[in-house]
């Protein structure tokens, strides 16, 4: 259990409405949630449960209609480099090499060339793309693209990683590999992670806590403590304890 002093991220009664032509609908209804520093939280739920909306509000890409999101006790006003984000569609800059992609945020920060290179090198190695530092994204597989995006997010040294179904477009094998690699990276470079998925196994395997959400209107349904030790291994993935938590999450997601 992570220590609960001041939560890293606080969703305080966050509501988001979208006004369409004919009807306004509530994407997210009064979400309140605390995420502790260094915690790995996964958010799982059916389409339309507002999980991506919540993430985008935390990222500062979307404004809440009501309520606030606090990061380190301060209200989120817009995007900031202390909150890195990883997208399902990778969102790499295709005209830049892996290295230049990873250096993108460092350049904005105004880091010098030598320092940029050094930091980029470190994170490219950390995600295992050392041999591809000068390759263009079009030559990379989906899994490699996502690892590059993870390195790019890490490079600006965010204290929070917001991940929007990052492995959703990958095949099942690659997905398992990337889950292990992400946990490995996270154990060495500890950050607060909020990870959106609709894969129940993935949600349980990665998280300290699984946040289950429900749709129409998008709202918090249940918070399930995983309580399995890290590092998570294949042994854990196949254990009875894992199965029973997985089943609980499954019930919560599919029997709403």
């Amino acid at each position: 259990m992570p220590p609960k002093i001041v939560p890293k991220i606080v969703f305080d009664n966050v509501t988001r409405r979208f006004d369409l032509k004919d009807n306004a609908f509530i994407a997210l209804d009064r979400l309140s949630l605390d995420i502790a520093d260094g915690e790995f939280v996964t958010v799982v739920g059916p389409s339309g449960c507002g999980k991506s909306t919540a993430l985008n509000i935390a990222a500062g890409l979307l404004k809440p209609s009501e309520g606030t999101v606090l990061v380190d006790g301060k209200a989120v006003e817009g995007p900031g480099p202390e909150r890195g984000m990883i997208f399902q569609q990778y969102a790499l800059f295709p005209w830049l090499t892996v290295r230049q992609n990873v250096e993108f945020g460092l350049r904005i920060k105004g880091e010098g060339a030598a320092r940029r290179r050094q930091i980029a090198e470190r994170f490219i190695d950390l995600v295992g793309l050392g041999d591809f530092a000068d390759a263009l994204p079009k030559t990379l597989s989906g899994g490699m693209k996502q690892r590059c995006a993870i390195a790019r997010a890490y490079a600006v040294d965010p204290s929070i990683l917001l991940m929007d179904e990052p492995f959703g477009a990958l095949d099942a094998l690659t997905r398992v590999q990337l889950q292990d690699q992400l946990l490995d990276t996270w154990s060495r470079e500890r950050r607060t992670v909020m990870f959106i998925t609709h894969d129940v196994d993935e949600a349980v395997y990665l998280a300290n806590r699984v946040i289950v959400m429900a749709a129409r209107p998008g709202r918090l349904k249940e918070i399930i403590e995983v309580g399995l030790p890290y590092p998570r291994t294949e042994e854990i993935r196949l254990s009875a304890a894992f199965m029973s938590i997985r089943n609980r999450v499954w019930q919560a997601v599919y029997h709403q």
Partner: protein
Amino acid sequence: MSGSKTTGSSGGPPEGSGVDYSGLALNLCGLVAGIAIWWVLTAGGAVGLPPPPQVASRFADLIANGQLATDIMSSLARVLTGFLLGVILAIPVGFVMGWYKVARSLIEPYLQFFRMIPPLAIIPLAIVTMGIDETPKIFVIFLASFLASVVATYQGVISVDKTMINAARVLGAGDLTIFLRVIIPASTPFILVGVRIGLGSAWATLVAAELIAAQTGLGFRMQQAQLYYDLPTIFVSLITIGILGLAMDRILLVIERRLTVWQERV
């Protein structure tokens, strides 16, 4: 992870840059066959057109007396001036239209309206208001290439992937950085297509403009030749126009490939 090493970073040339010899050979065959058919058809004088040798010798004459060079230079000067002015204005206007909704709504009706008027239809107005020197011709060419490029540029800007912009934003980029480092490179392929279309319409407009009012140029030469029933000279001009247009298009294509090697091609 490991098996995909062959796909990248080996420094190999990008696809499409390998020379396709069998294709080239076929191109050449088609060319020779075409000239042969032309020769056969015109040999007996049945079609009333000049045979290839006559056109070739007229080519030689016009090169020898320097007339062809003069015509090419004045035509190229017009087309390049008008085209460059058009593109140089089109790109910023296209960016402004793509970036600011207000600008788009203000400008777009005019753009769509003028796009419907063939640039050649502007020639009478241009001659009346600008005289018969170089200005009206360059203006019409400018208009043609501007209209073609501006639409492509702003389409490029509005089709930039929003996720990519968000990715830059969460990495700390402000509007200016996003514009310079995301919007411009991401819309480059669209802009280059627009520039090529612009060059095509500039070239098409040039000849017509010269047909109406000029003292030199490839179009002017054709019109003169028409008065004297000088078919070989008309052929020389037509072939020159085609070759120059093709050459310029190829040059732009090479530049386009260079600037967009990063694009995934099917």
